[in-house]
């Protein structure tokens, strides 16, 4: 096949002949690498929790502290917010500004519900004398679950900033790229939460 034919079809050309990838692909891949490195932070915290989960120093054990119904509602909130965030990302691809605002607002509301449920759980635990300073197990618990909650909270701050930016800048390519990266971040947090509810809450003994 002649070189011209290859260029015309695009797909048969070796990668190295095709020039730089579009910004959207490069930005997405870079953000994907960041997400994987963020997951390594959680891996370290999971390892610490798994090692320390039995070290209660005579304090309350995991199985006495956690309310599974509470955790189930938190999980459903986060799952639903992942889906609404996906619908928001699709609205961005269509250029449908109104649908984007609607779905992202729902995502934000579900995120607020999740974080406030987690905050109420933390405050009742601390009030009952099961704060992070009680035992090594509780230190590891508050660090792991708190880091996830902090990620969700910062994600929501990021989303609010993005929505304000869209209001003033419109859905220009840079904005749709940022919203796309936010979506990746939000889905990755959901994956981390699967680990949290399985190991911390359901694996409690």
């Amino acid at each position: 096949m002649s070189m011209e034919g290859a260029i015309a079809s695009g797909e048969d050309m070796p990668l190295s002949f095709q020039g730089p990838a579009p910004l959207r692909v490069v930005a997405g891949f870079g953000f994907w690498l960041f997400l994987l490195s963020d997951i390594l932070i959680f891996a370290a915290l999971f390892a610490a929790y798994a090692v320390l989960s039995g070290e209660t120093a005579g304090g309350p054990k995991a199985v006495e502290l956690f309310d599974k119904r509470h955790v189930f509602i938190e999980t459903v909130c986060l799952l639903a917010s992942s889906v609404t965030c996906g619908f928001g990302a699709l609205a961005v691809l269509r250029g449908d500004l109104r649908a984007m605002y609607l779905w992202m607002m729902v995502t934000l509301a579900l995120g607020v519900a999740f974080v406030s449920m987690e905050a109420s759980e933390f405050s009742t635990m601390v009030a009952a004398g099961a704060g992070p300073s009680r035992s090594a197990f509780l230190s590891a618990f508050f660090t792991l679950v708190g880091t996830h909650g902090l990620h969700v909270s910062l994600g929501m701050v990021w989303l609010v900033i993005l929505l304000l930016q869209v209001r003033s800048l419109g859905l220009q390519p840079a904005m749709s790229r940022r919203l796309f990266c936010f979506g990746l971040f939000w889905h990755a947090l959901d994956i981390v939460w699967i680990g949290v509810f399985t190991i911390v809450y359901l694996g409690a003994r």
Partner: protein
Amino acid sequence: MEHLAEAQGRAPGPSRHSRHPGMSYLVGLAYAIALTVASFWASSTTSVYGPAAPVLLAVLAIAQMGIHLVFFLHISSAPDQTNNVLALAFGIFVTAFIIFGSLLIMTHLNHAMMSMEQLQSIQR
């Protein structure tokens, strides 16, 4: 530009090319809810043999993570996703390395350590 993007690889995330792009999220949600309910059931039921329950929970969690990767992050085995999959594989490798490595070393240390009573009897 767009066909070049396809030839050069895609970043994880929604695709504008599938016919019903919203379906992926709904199918993913259905699977994820089913697996979540199964996990909560497995943790509270007595019909699963006790020592096997953690294994069942781990399997359900890994399955759900896979569902999220495929239906929400749209990671696939397509040739244009090789970079994403390789990065993911490395991430999973290091994650497993950290978690299982720590558990292995710490349980071994626990075994090798003298118990509190023995320590106190020496100090006396």
